[in-house]
């Protein structure tokens, strides 16, 4: 569904991604782990071209998004993205956060958008907050709102960029529960995370990225139990509890 070909990203002198060719298949749940600065987030942000690749291609449903003249906005709407710092819209109510994009982009009428938004909010336990401003929400609630906001566009894949890294520890599980639900339903998911246990639990495949390349990948069981590469072993030894 998403395929990258020789994806390269440079920031000035610094090469963050070294020609990555990878594929995310329909309904697949892929976790990306690795040390900070290894290129995980940049790779994710290149998938919906929030970050424009220096070289290489990104195909989404067969369309090369890096081509000139491609209607990026149309494809971005099909790739829901969730950010580390939530980025909910503080000037809008919870409900308006969810209905903004559907009403602006689909010309779907307001009542219909609100009905669907309420169904989504109910699903993540935020229905009673629909009239609140986001600044009245906890971190976990904000992130659940951000997920619902992306889901309102009915995306074909969800991209999560360290969705629990900015959360207080006691709020991590409520956000992970929502992601788990989505994954179980068969939503294609790319998850950049430091939650090793969670990555192992929900992923079909785990990628280990370091220094701008995918060092190693595989199904979570073998990946975590018998890592092949020395760099992967060194990283896992540091982050996994003994």
């Amino acid at each position: 569904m998403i395929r990258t070909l020789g994806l390269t990203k440079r920031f000035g002198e610094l090469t963050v991604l070294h020609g990555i060719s990878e594929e995310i298949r329909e309904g697949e749940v892929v976790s990306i782990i690795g040390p900070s600065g290894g290129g995980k987030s940049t790779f994710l942000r290149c998938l919906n071209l929030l970050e424009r690749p220096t070289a290489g291609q990104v195909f989404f449903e067969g369309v090369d998004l890096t081509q000139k003249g491609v209607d990026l906005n149309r494809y971005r709407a099909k790739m829901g993205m969730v950010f580390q710092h939530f980025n909910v819209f503080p000037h809008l109510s919870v409900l308006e956060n969810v209905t903004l994009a559907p009403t602006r982009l689909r010309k779907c009428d307001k009542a219909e958008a609100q009905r669907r938004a309420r169904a989504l909010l109910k699903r993540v336990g935020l229905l009673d907050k629909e009239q609140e401003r986001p600044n009245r929400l906890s971190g976990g609630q904000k992130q659940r709102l951000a997920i619902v906001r992306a889901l309102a566009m009915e995306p074909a894949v969800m991209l999560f960029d360290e969705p629990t890294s900015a959360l207080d520890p006691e709020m991590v599980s409520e956000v992970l529960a929502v992601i788990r639900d989505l994954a179980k339903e068969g939503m294609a998911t790319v998850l950049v995370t430091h939650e090793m246990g969670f990555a192992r639990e929900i992923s079909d495949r785990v990628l280990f990225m370091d220094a701008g390349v995918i060092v190693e990948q595989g199904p979570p069981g073998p990946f975590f139990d018998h890592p092949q590469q020395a760099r992967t072993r060194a990283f896992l030894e540091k982050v996994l509890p003994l």
Partner: protein
Amino acid sequence: MTANIIRLLGAYGLKFLGGLRVTLMLSALTIVASLPLGGLICMLRMSRLRAVRLLASSYIEVVRGLPLLLQLYCFVFLLPRALPLQLTRLQNVSLSLALFSAAYVAELFRSGIQAVDSGQMEAARSLGLSKAQAMMAVVLPQAVRNILPGLGNQFVIIIKDTSLASVFFVDDLMTVQKVLTGTLYTTMEPMIIAGVIYFALTFSLSKLVSLYEKRVSLA
């Protein structure tokens, strides 16, 4: 002194009112014109094209780097020679003030927009909104809060700056003060009257803006 002021007001009160009318008109015209002009310059300043950005920032630097009085001279004495159509002196002065103020307004807009967390634009774009839609629906409503205090300040400055136009005797408040001082050989009283009127204008405007600010921050 007080008796003098009252006597002066009795005799020339209408003159001061006339001056107030011109000052208000000049200020309002400048404020109203500098908003869209400032918006346009701000857009150019934030353009994707380097040449356009350079053009806008050169404009801003030149306007901010030259004394307003010098700019007024240019518009009143040089512009009529360069332009085929004849503008009145007041129109030339208004144009100069508006173009001057627009440079500051543009920078106010820009800093207010850039103070909005870049994650807001990214989140809006990731939902599929175009850059313009994201700007209108997400970034600008948040930027307004950053811009308002500075904008109120700028309006107050405009009101005061219109007094420079009195150099060309455009019959504004300051012109009335000058003329009365010259004809009556009294300096203090006309100055006090003009000062009180200016202060009443600027003070009530800044109060108004802070009221509006409160309303916006509550919303």
